[in-house]
């Protein structure tokens, strides 16, 4: 996979549902199309929520991984 340059990181560790998604949506509002957001979260619900949010808003989930109870998502802005 080619290296993706992160435009902005949203550190949502420790935040409960739905604040990781709210912070991601706030970041997306301020960024141009094509920008890449890295979301780091500890809310287990974010696995399904990020996928649902991307599907509903048309933003693209290009990578996701987890390290124990820390989840990382890479999203390209529509």
């Amino acid at each position, binding site marked *: 996979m080619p290296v993706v340059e992160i435009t902005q990181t949203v550190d949502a560790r420790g935040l409960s549902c739905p*604040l990781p*998604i*709210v912070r991601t949506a706030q970041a997306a509002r301020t960024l141009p199309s094509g920008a890449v957001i890295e979301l780091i979260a500890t809310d287990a619900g974010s696995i399904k929520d990020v996928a649902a949010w991307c599907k509903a808003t048309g933003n693209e989930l290009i990578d996701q991984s987890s390290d124990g109870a820390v989840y990382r998502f890479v999203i390209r802005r529509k």
Partner: protein
Amino acid sequence: MDEPLNLVLFSGTDDKLQAAAVLTAGAAALGKPVNIFLQYWALDAFRATKIGRDHGLAPEAGPAGRAAVDALTRAGQASWADTLRQAKDLGGVDIQACSLSMDLLHLESLDLDPLVDGVEGVTAFYLNAGDGQVVFI
């Protein structure tokens, strides 16, 4: 996604207001408009002088529920008011006080927290609700 989510908030306890704030923030993040109509004890909780205070929990919470909620708060969970502020920052969230409840509680607009956008009657609420679901909490 274009139909608004319409929440009628009646209960003024922190757990029900937190649940409402979570529903609101989730919808706002998806770009779904949210109309909130504050009645009775929910409106009372939005007084500028009371919004940051402890509003108790629903009776079914019991002591174990109280302990669970306190643990989440200690872990840094945002208050319902803070969650609503973040949801409003995303746009599309309108919070209105029920004019009948304003009379009941002897409130003026200036008595309310700035989270509240205005005062309206139930007819205006239904007009704005359109064909979206109405949820009563």
